[in-house]
């Protein structure tokens, strides 16, 4: 059996969902022979590859870079999972959504500091007007809410998908 090509993506989130994935602990060893991790913060690949079976996306879509990467993910993945509340609801990143980005950045980097009154522009992606849940910008095949989703829920999702079944999460996950 060929190994499933799995990718993980980290958009506007705290990496807690990736930590929760690592919390699978020894179960990861059992998964290792069945999957090939082709992209994500846990591997070296620089570019999101073609022909991915399942991509887990952590984080809200907050910047133009997030949006571009989300679109690439969709175009190159058979199955996209929104992993965790930031990807599912926009969660904490959306708490800025009532403030226009320019005002927000000035509040933080100009009014909010004593030195270096300057909004950083070099090498940081421009913010979108609002942070959005992933499914408001691309089609999402499965939502796994939770902040973070418990490792057991992530493990269940992975093993069901590897077995070719659609995970039924009713009653197993919650927001927050």
């Amino acid at each position, binding site marked *: 059996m060929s190994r499933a090509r799995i990718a993980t993506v980290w958009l506007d989130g705290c990496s807690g969902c990736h930590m929760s994935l690592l919390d699978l602990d020894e179960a990861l060893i059992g998964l290792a022979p069945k999957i090939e991790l082709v992209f994500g913060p846990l591997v070296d690949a620089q570019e999101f590859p073609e022909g991915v079976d399942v991509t887990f996306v952590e984080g809200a879509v907050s910047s133009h870079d997030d949006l571009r990467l989300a679109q690439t993910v969709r175009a190159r993945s058979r199955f996209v999972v*929104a992993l965790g*509340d930031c990807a599912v*609801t926009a969660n904490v990143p*959306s*708490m800025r959504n009532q403030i226009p980005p320019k005002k927000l950045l000035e509040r933080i980097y100009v009014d909010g500091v004593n030195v270096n009154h300057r909004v950083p522009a070099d090498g940081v992606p421009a913010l979108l007007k609002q942070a959005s*849940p992933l499914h408001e910008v691309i089609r999402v095949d499965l939502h796994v809410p939770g902040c973070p989703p418990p490792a057991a829920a992530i493990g269940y999702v992975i093993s069901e998908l590897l077995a070719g079944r659609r995970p039924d*999460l009713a009653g197993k996950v*919650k*927001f927050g």
Partner: protein
Amino acid sequence: MPDRVSIRIDGELLHARLGQTILEAATAQGRFIPSLCHLKGLTPVGACRLCLVEVAGIGRLLPACTTPVQDGMAVTTRSDRLDRYRRMILELLFAERNHVCAVCVSNNHCELQALARRLGVTHVRFPYSFPKAGTDLSHRQFVLDQNRCILCTRCVRVCAEVEGAHVWDVAGRGIGSRLVCELNRAWADSRSCTGCGKCVQSCPTGALAMKGFAAEEMVKRTETITRLVEAKGVRA
């Protein structure tokens, strides 16, 4: 007229007292009908529509919390259609405000969150409105966070009916509706609030909370409100 009636709930024949609502009759038999605006002891208002049920022979859905039982009534509390509508109602409640459960004082103790889990709501299909909802931090002991208010009016009713102060009301229309303290003044400036905290304990979400509580710390004591009303009823 006999004061006991026979009804069918999901096919099962049960006895109920005349004057009971469908929700009361079902709950008394240990059955679960989702509800949010209902709090035992307060006047039911049928505001959230989560408890909608099908009643044989009636073409529209009826709220179980306000509909009295009648002899021979046949009620369906679960169906694909009801499940669909209930999930939709929950999703609309989430889309209407900024709940951000992860950082809420009532995370893991919230009735809205618990129902979403129970009914299998894993995401919200409607676009979030991200409104500027505001908070009232003026009161010495309590906080009102409009971001998490679902307009169930439990606080309005407990304050008016149990405490007798009637501090809260709902102002505005539709999606612009907001809970207001006496004709829209800061809570600290209320002339009638006694500081009893009944509104806080009745609130199903983190919209009303005690000050000084961090995320996940605010557990509400709704059963205390029910007990209080029942004790009062005995005395009266």
